[in-house]
């Protein structure tokens, strides 16, 4: 089977283009430059990765992001490079043929393929809320996990449960790792996650044969080791106490910090501020909108998209304070009265 280098050559790219991609991949993965010759070698000779991509309770947004990851590999190379044996949105066969090709791939590449899961899993009521080809999503997942060399949960839905898991979670949506307790799952959260991150994790598997270094919540440390706030170019304004008060006031026009408008950058771990989107063009904060924190668990339920992080979630205003004062006053006066009585006073 072809390697990445062969694909570049076949598509008319130069060796320089190939080397640029190899450097981009190893930089993205945070590999030391001394390992670069090894990375180049691996991408030159190792066969392209086989990927089986399952979609459960999802919106295919993660797929959309994936195929637009253009800063590391050009799209035409990417789609050639990955041997996408099964992907409901992208594959041309359907019905029986699609299922058959998946079964064949799972047998042929047993122990070697990368299993990518997009969307949350719904085991509730025997998995009836999400079925493909008459099988429940949980059964499909377990069957595909058996022979997988690497399991990757892409997007906040697969990593944490995401939007289907949001209150009141009618389908009992769970994350992939909750369903596959005890198995290593690489979580690439985000709604959607950055395409280049997904590609890099798969490339890392080709190069090293294993998952990248993960944090305690299963996220690759290189991409999720820092918060947006750590790397935000508006940070000097935060430090100086200069904030935009609305999305289009003078402060916003001057590029001030968006904390007051509800920016979740300080508690959000993702690579948006460094890798950015659309080939490194921009990211939400750069285009003037506060960070939603889409890569953190339960971001949707946090329900405070435009309220500053430090404000009590679930509201505590003057009314609640007055209720407290009224209760305290009533009890205080009551106790004072009883004390007075017991002392025989009037």
């Amino acid at each position, binding site marked *: 089977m072809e390697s990445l280098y062969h694909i570049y050559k076949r598509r008319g790219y130069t060796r320089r283009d190939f080397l640029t991609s190899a450097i981009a991949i190893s930089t993205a993965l945070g590999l030391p430059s001394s390992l670069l010759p090894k990375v180049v070698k691996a991408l030159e000779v190792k066969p392209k990765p086989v990927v089986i991509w399952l979609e459960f309770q999802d919106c295919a947004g993660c797929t959309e992001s994936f195929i637009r990851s253009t800063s590391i590999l050009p799209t035409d190379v990417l789609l050639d490079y990955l041997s996408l044996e099964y992907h409901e949105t992208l594959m041309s066969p359907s019905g029986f043929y699609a299922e058959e090709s998946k079964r064949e791939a799972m047998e042929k590449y047993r122990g070697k393929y990368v299993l990518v899961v997009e969307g949350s899993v719904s085991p509730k009521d025997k998995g009836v809320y999400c079925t493909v080809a008459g099988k429940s999503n949980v059964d499909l997942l377990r069957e595909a996990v058996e022979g997988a060399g690497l399991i990757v949960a892409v997007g906040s839905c697969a990593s944490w449960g995401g939007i289907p898991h949001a209150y009141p979670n009618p389908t009992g949506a769970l994350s992939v790792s909750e369903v596959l307790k005890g198995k290593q799952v690489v979580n690439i959260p985000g709604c959607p996650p950055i395409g280049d991150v997904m590609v890099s994790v798969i490339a890392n598997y080709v190069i090293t044969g294993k998952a990248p270094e993960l*944090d305690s*919540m299963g996220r690759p440390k290189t991409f999720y*080791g*820092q*918060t947006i*706030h*750590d790397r935000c170019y508006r940070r000097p304004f*935060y*430090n*100086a*106490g200069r*904030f935009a008060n609305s999305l289009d006031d003078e402060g916003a026009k001057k590029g001030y910090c968006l*904390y*007051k408008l509800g920016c979740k950058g*300080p*508690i959000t*771990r993702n690579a948006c501020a460094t890798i950015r989107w659309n080939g490194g063009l921009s990211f939400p904060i750069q285009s003037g909108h506060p960070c939603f924190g889409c890569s*953190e*668990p*339960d971001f949707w339920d*946090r329900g405070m998209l435009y*309220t*500053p*992080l*430090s*404000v*009590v*979630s*679930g*509201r*505590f*205003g*003057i009314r*609640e*304070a*007055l*209720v*407290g*004062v*009224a*209760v*305290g*006053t009533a*009890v*205080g*006066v009551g*106790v*004072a*009265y009883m*004390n*007075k009585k017991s002392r025989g*006073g009037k």
Partner: protein
Amino acid sequence: MSDVAFYDFVRGPFLKFALFVFFVGIAYRFFRVIFLGMPPDYAKPKGSPPFMALKKIIIKPTMGWTFNEIFSRRAINFIGGFLFHLGFLGLTFFVPAHALLWKEITGIPFPTLPNIVSDVLAYAALGSLIALTIHRALNPVLKLLTGKDEYFANLLIALIIFTGLLATRWAGGGSYIWLVSLHLFLANLLIIYIPFSRLSHFVYYFLSVGFMGWNAGKRGVSF
């Protein structure tokens, strides 16, 4: 528990609970004392009690600020106490994250401090708190007046300032979320603790000083 889940808990239900206990506690203690009342005093006041009470509240904080008082006898108390209160109150109300919380509670917008000023205040408050605590432990008179309450309160406040500093200045990456949550967690404990400890002096100080002024006014003496 993930750090974000812990964060959501401390800034959600736990903070709400702490604030509620705080308001109940402060009102409870205040009215319990007020309504206990004083034995009736039928003597005619010789001066003006309300005026003297007000005078005492306003003038008292400046009374110690004489050269003699500060530099010959109680330098640590006055300078340390001043720096600590300035720092602590400045941080509590005017650090941007805190100012937004107060705005939410009171509806009034609070001005915000740039980081550099908050840093200076934080170091000033922390340094003076440590100095005051050591002074307390070593000074023969203060030692007698000090109980576990003071040491606990000082430790709690020092930890709050320290974790705040750690979170905003030194922590990067994931540890920021743990530290800021810890900062909030400890602050919640303090909010609950204030009404039931000597920290409630931020309310009762004015009550007791006012009472002393009132008495002085009644007797027609000066202070």
